[in-house]
């Protein structure tokens, strides 16, 4: 099933000679060396592998690369190119969210997608957008605080800009 798959990753177009059923996660990590996206469960159950495919938060561990041919993929390595992503990273730093840090790339990708669609999320919005992203260290208090802080920072930026 090997063929050439073309996709844009963080703005760079790649032509990859890989099996089309290889999950996007393993294409990113082992074929392209983009290891910021993490493997947690391989079954769409933990969110560690969350990336954006055409802007939508997507579990890359259960997404065959062939299914996203021609799409625009954004990973944690490229999220700073997006103003919302940058704001989320800044809030994550300010609040000092992580413990082990392993889930945080996925959390940041999910939070960026949430804040892009819902700039001022309620607690209920946060619960429903983020419940798919497990944090084994249970940094949820700070994840919630950082999402709210990012919403606030974005509003300040809009007023300033």
């Amino acid at each position, binding site marked *: 099933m090997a063929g050439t798959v073309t996709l844009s990753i963080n703005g760079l177009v790649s032509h990859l000679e890989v*099996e089309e059923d*290889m*999950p996007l996660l*393993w294409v990113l990590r*082992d*074929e392209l*060396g*983009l*290891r*910021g*996206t*993490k*493997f*947690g*469960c*391989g*079954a769409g*159950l*933990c969110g*560690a592998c969350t990336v954006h495919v055409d802007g939508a938060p997507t579990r890359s561990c259960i997404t065959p690369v062939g299914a996203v041919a021609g799409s625009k993929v954004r*990973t*944690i*390595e490229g*999220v*700073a190119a997006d103003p919302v992503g940058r704001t989320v*990273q800044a809030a*994550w*730093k300010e609040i*000092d969210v*992580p*413990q*082990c*840090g*392993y*889930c*945080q*790339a996925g959390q*940041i990708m999910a939070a960026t997608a949430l804040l892009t669609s819902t700039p001022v999320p309620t607690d209920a919005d*946060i*619960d*429903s957008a*983020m*419940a*798919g*992203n*497990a*944090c*084994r*260290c*249970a*940094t*949820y*208090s*700070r*994840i*919630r605080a950082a999402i709210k802080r990012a919403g606030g920072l974005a509003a300040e930026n809009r007023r300033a800009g």
Partner: protein
Amino acid sequence: MIDMLEQADRRAFLKIGAAVGGGLMLGLMRPSVAVAGATAETAAELNGYVRIAPDGIATIMAKNPEIGQGIKTMLPMLIAEELDIAWKDVRIEQADADARRFGQQIAGGSYATPLHWDPLRRVGAAARQMLIAAAAQRWQCHPAECATEPGMVVHAASGRKLGYGALAGIAATMPVPDLNNVPLKPEAGYRIIGKPTPQVDIDAIVTGKMQFGIDVEVPGMAYAVFAKCPVPGGKPVRANLDEISREKGVIATFVVDGSTDAPAGGLVSGVAIVADSWWRAEKARDKLRVEWDGGAIAAHSSAHFAAEAARLFGQPATAVIRKDGEVAKALAGAARTVEADYFYPFIGHATLEPQNCTASVIGDKVEIWAPTQAPARGIALIAETLGIPEANVTVHLIRCGGGFGRRLIADPMVEAAYIAKKASRPVKLLWSRKDDMQHDFYRPAGFHRLKGGLDASGRLVALHDHFVTFGKDGKVARSADLSASEFPAQLVPHCLYESSLIECGIPTGPLRAPGSNAIAFVFQSFMDELAHAAGKDPYQFQLDMLSEPRLLPTGRSLRPGSAEKVSFDTRRMADVLRKAASMSGWGKRRLPKRTGMGIACYFSHLGYFAEVALVAVSKDGTPSVEQVWVAADVGRHIINPSMAVNQVQGSVIDGIGSALFQQITIEKGGVVQANFNDHDLIRIDRAPIVEVEFLKTDFPPTGLGEPALPPAIPAICNAIHAATGKRIRSLPIDIALLRA
């Protein structure tokens, strides 16, 4: 000059050795002769921990593995404080495993703070003394005339100042001060300790650049999966290796003939598949057909364990753990008695980063890149298994995507080394989530039959626990014991703790707050039952039991191997109980229907914690933990308040998650659960608000990786009782029992 250094080195080492009696190996103060070496032009090394460059930047080694407790930031803070340098001028490097230089390097037991609080401050202070001595030599004055300001030595009388960078070269030639007598700063003058300090790797984490074990790449590396028998310790009888070897990307596949004693934590048997990508190795595994021999353990099941426990409860216990007074008599004469059976299941560690390790074997030398909590154990195990000297094993400490005790056991390290050797190439071994969940060292399950006797005034006068736990050949399994000093022993005149063993070959091991994470649920829930039976407020009942301040021996050592014993201070516990009660408005709130508050307290890992939970139970029985108030006493300093609060909040939510969602069950000798759909992690939508306050008391600071967890579970269970009248005596919480 070299001679002088070596002399200084020897002298310092002897003094250090005498100071700690060999218990804590401080390879601390070896002023490096390497100043004369490669880095001589740009940097001078004061000792194994600190390097000061001419620009005044201090590089401090982080000696321990980082598993998420913030140790990579916190331990260097201790050195930097006493070195007296601005935190912005500090860079931190992760040390490799090197027992000669760093002594014990282990992430576990909440030991990092108590074990390093004193020695690492002394390292910083010694370096500062050497910088002062260097300045005094330059200025031809007495060192006592000099002091430091962050990053510089000052001579107040003349107003002269010299930066550490300018002094580092001379400082390295100064005699090493006696670590025991090196002057420490007055604690009131701290500039770094006690300040919320963002973790050093925060930038790397939020940009995806942080390297975890799973991210290691070495030249020429292949990827491996290791398929083990679903029954721990089982052996492959035959396997379709020819077929597997023809799968796309497969480089090698072979049987590993290991030990049948899975609980020992060494190399067990299985089938290794090495491929040019992990996914291809894993895909090839889908086609793997193995006939396994599970041995005697294949007869194990959770149902069998429960039946065994019921049978053992009907017989006299086989071992006495503690005996005070005459329990049977006291129970017979009690005004009221309460009896209850408690159960908690096996649970897994489920670190979000599955077990993995990268290994390269060249000749009889092994190089390992490991997300491990205990590198020395991995080194010993690899050396023993491969038949090579320990000195031939190099271990690089790679950040762990969570530890929780799982990575204290070195099985993935020895597997990677063995497979790399056999495959004759560097290998990154990665377990699937199913491997990780089914080949864990589980928090052991346990069964308790409790009897309590109250006198006419409602005071607890008799307590009996028959604890049915797991073991082999009369020996209690790892982390499956009960302490003779378990609270409320020593506060109850007639107390009998005894145990019986179920024979078991399921691997068990330490999970965050080992023992306590389960025992606190049992004993603190039972205290709540007794309080109700006595007609007392549960908070008051516990305070009354603690009664007047005193120290109770626990029989445990302050640090492994040390003669210094740990006492339980009833006053510190009473104080956190009072604090938690006042923070939460205990007894003063009017609560809606099916909403309740529960209280629990627990002493573990030298930390005193009292917690109050507010829980609302919906009509369908789902408990929603709305808020938890935590009062903690871990001594007089919270070294890094940012990570401290994060640890406490995470521990509390972790404990609640385990009580709500986690249970490992055994069928036909193997683990049933395979992924987060059947052994879930708590998610953000179920995480309560956690309010934390630290009482600052006059004791040396102690650790925070564990002690906040144990009381969280009984606090929510007691709150559920307050909300519904239903008592949770079995975990995980069965919501069917809580329906309106």
